[in-house]
């Protein structure tokens, strides 16, 4: 394979694009002479390290809200004309780049069907180009997902245009075919690839602990992912700080999308608690996570993969709405004994600190051992090579 084109579906956050880039980075290592062009509208793509032989086309950003549906995030232009602009740019990219494989994230026809024209063009003019869909382990509750998929005729689109559907998860955790009732023709194209093992951090556990001035003190890493809706978790955590065992240090990575008033409140908390540090954003999450003893986090796909890769003890407080993906993931994985989970509705400083205290005590003596299939990357490379 020489030319891979990737469509990454993003409205906010880093999750989708980070997952896609880690897949691409691995494919670049695997296929000699491969060039990857990523089409993305993530407002955060600049914050990620871009490997050699990969470049990206960033489109004008969109936003999604329950009330209004898709809107134009920054540009201040109308949604329809902006989708037209994006559609045209995607089509030009395909026509000039002539990919052998077009890998599409999550939405078979893209946002607001912006891929439709391009897929039809590929069908008629580039018949050798293979079209592959990439799905996260869990999209949403079967109820909501089915509704959207049926309404948009996604199963039909998969049948007509797609060669392969890759799921970066396992049927053990969530069997997408059964849960979302894939019709036979679409189900035949599905391959479960396992979860994505994350690359080691840039710095070692020792180096980071030295930088932080930690000796043998236990470190708790608290991360609400991108941070846009994670303040409640941080607030609850900070409210319980005083009742944590002595010597425990806490590093909060609040996330680049933490709203401003909350960031200000975190700055106030730092002054009150000498055992607390706050970082807005890091490019080395794996490094910090490795340096920690217990992780308190929300249940986003990437965070969970980081925890599973490092085999860290963790307490997951998932997002439960508007999308139930995190809640389902947390519940299923906790049932498989991969970490502990607390429902956000039950969350209180007392409960969080008491569970955390148990985990801290256990982390010193019993490392976490349960493991999941983390072989997504080599499996994806193999499946794409077989096309």
């Amino acid at each position, binding site marked *: 394979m*020489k030319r891979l084109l990737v469509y990454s579906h993003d409205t906010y956050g880093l999750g989708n694009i980070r997952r896609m880039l880690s897949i691409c980075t691995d494919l670049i290592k695997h296929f000699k*002479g*491969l*060039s*990857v*062009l990523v089409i993305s509208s993530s*407002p*955060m*793509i*600049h*914050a990620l390290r*871009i490997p*050699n*032989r*990969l*470049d*990206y*086309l*960033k*489109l*004008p*950003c969109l936003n999604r809200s329950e009330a209004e549906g898709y809107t134009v*995030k*920054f*540009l*201040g*232009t109308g949604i329809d*004309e902006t989708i*037209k*602009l994006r559609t*045209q*740019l995607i089509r*030009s*990219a395909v*026509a*000039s*780049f002539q990919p052998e494989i077009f890998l599409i994230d999550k939405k078979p026809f893209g946002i607001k069907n912006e891929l439709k024209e391009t897929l039809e063009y590929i069908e008629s003019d580039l018949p050798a180009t293979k079209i592959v869909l990439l799905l996260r382990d869990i999209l949403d509750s079967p109820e909501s997902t089915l509704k959207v998929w049926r309404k948009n005729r996604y199963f039909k689109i998969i049948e007509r245009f797609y060669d392969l559907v890759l799921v970066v998860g396992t049927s053990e955790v969530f069997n997408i075919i059964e849960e979302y009732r894939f019709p036979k023709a679409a189900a035949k194209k599905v391959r479960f690839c396992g979860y994505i093992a994350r690359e080691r951090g*840039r710095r070692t556990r020792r180096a980071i602990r030295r*930088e*932080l*001035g*930690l000796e043998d*003190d236990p470190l708790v890493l608290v991360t609400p992912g991108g941070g846009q809706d994670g303040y409640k978790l941080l607030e609850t955590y900070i409210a319980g700080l005083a009742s944590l065992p002595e010597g425990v*240090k806490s*590093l909060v990575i609040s996330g*680049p999308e933490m709203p*401003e008033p909350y960031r200000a409140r975190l700055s106030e908390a730092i002054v009150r608690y*000498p*055992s607390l*540090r*706050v*970082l*807005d*954003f*890091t*490019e*080395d999450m794996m490094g910090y996570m490795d340096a920690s003893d217990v992780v308190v986090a929300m249940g986003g796909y990437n965070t969970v993969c980081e925890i599973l890769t490092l085999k860290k003890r963790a307490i997951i407080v998932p997002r439960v709405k508007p999308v139930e993906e995190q809640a389902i993931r947390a519940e299923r994985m906790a049932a498989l004994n991969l970490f502990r989970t607390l429902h956000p509705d039950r969350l209180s400083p007392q409960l969080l600190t008491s569970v955390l205290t148990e985990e801290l005590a256990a982390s010193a003596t019993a490392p976490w051992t349960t493991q999941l299939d983390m072989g997504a990357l080599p499996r994806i490379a193999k499946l794409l090579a077989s096309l």
Partner: protein
Amino acid sequence: MRIFHYSHDTYGLGHIRRTLAIAEQLALDFPQASQLVVSGTPQPSCFNLPSRLDFIKLPDIDKPFQKKFHAPSLLLQADALKSLRENMILDAMRFFKPDLVLVDKAPAGVRGELLPSLRYLQNERPETKLVLGMCDIEDNAMIARENDRTEIPLENPVDAVNVKDTIRGQWRDQGIHALLENHYNLILHYGNREIYDPVSEYRLSGKIERKMISCGHIGRSSPTLPKEQLRRSLNLKTDRLVVVTAGGGEDGFELLNFYLKTLSHTLGTKSSTRSQDPNNPPFDSIVIPGPLMSMTKRRQLQAYRSMGLPFTLLDSTNNMFSYLNAADLVISKGGYNSICEILSLNKRAIIVPHTKPRVEQLIRAGRLAVRGLVEMIHPQKLTASTLLKKIQEGLEPRERVSPEETGLNMNGALNASQAIERLLGTNAAFGFKNPKRPFPARKGFTQRVYAETVPAFS
């Protein structure tokens, strides 16, 4: 109103930062405008962008003279990449329907990739205003000749490299003069003609000169983390801070490496015995490689730390302006933006310009050094003892003249925006007068300054 920015991207981050500085000012003065930036340069943090502005980032153009540092990002034939970008720029132009197109530095675009779009505008949307933004000292045409390895005199570095002929020749060969005369409505020079006059240096025609407005250098007023907060988070050992920056980082490795080597000779390391104790350095150092420096090179710099040399190496920062603000002395290359930031903060600085492949930095640094605004060390004169001597001098307290006091106009963005306002005829009474007033605080969009380092637990 719709503004389309085309930003040149063959080298470093300078162009995009200049484009954004202008866009920020336009967002203030035209709050209803939508601005679309089209460029191959990665966008900076979106939280520090004006509202109603977004990016289309094109696949990167390959950088022939950098192949030894970077693999090209896409293994495409040059003409395939060119047609890909040409088409996307044209798509963007057709569907965004701009009222104003502001082109940064390359009137025909990189390798002429703007020409199809310019033809489209002329035929289909002739009412669109076309504006060129020019750097204080143009560099895209200033390809230095072999003989620039000889020493270049500080006072008049241009004489030694015959730059005038080079740029004039290139612009003539590429038909740039005709493009400026016949297609562009306005030319904005983001510099001071007293320092470098593009009209006489490039022999521009009277017709072009009449379209040109010298706006001044683009002064910065970005918000910063408070100086003391930033210093605290760095766990400094002394009260004197030297910040060493390589700008975007594509070609700054040698300077940073030389700085650290010099420090290691002076301070010694764990494995050697030197006069000074590395635990008690005479000043603190922060070394900022810049986002474009390769991992291999970062690791080489990081290696000085494992030798026990006391300095902070930042992995990357979105807060360059905050670090410069916190510094007592800045050591930097001579890129346009670094220099504008240093001048805006009126920082003491030692500039080590690059001299290849272009001499623009050398000219800039030399002319500012003559005015006493910065110290310059020619890279060929860069020795450990010269550098240390300049650092020691630079850290001694001294009266400073501000750039404005020496007659430098630092209101580039404001003046550019006013010139555009006049061109569009939205406020004809608002005359261009080169006002020596401070650039306004930028309102109307959220700016965020992230903490990227944390103080150690005590």
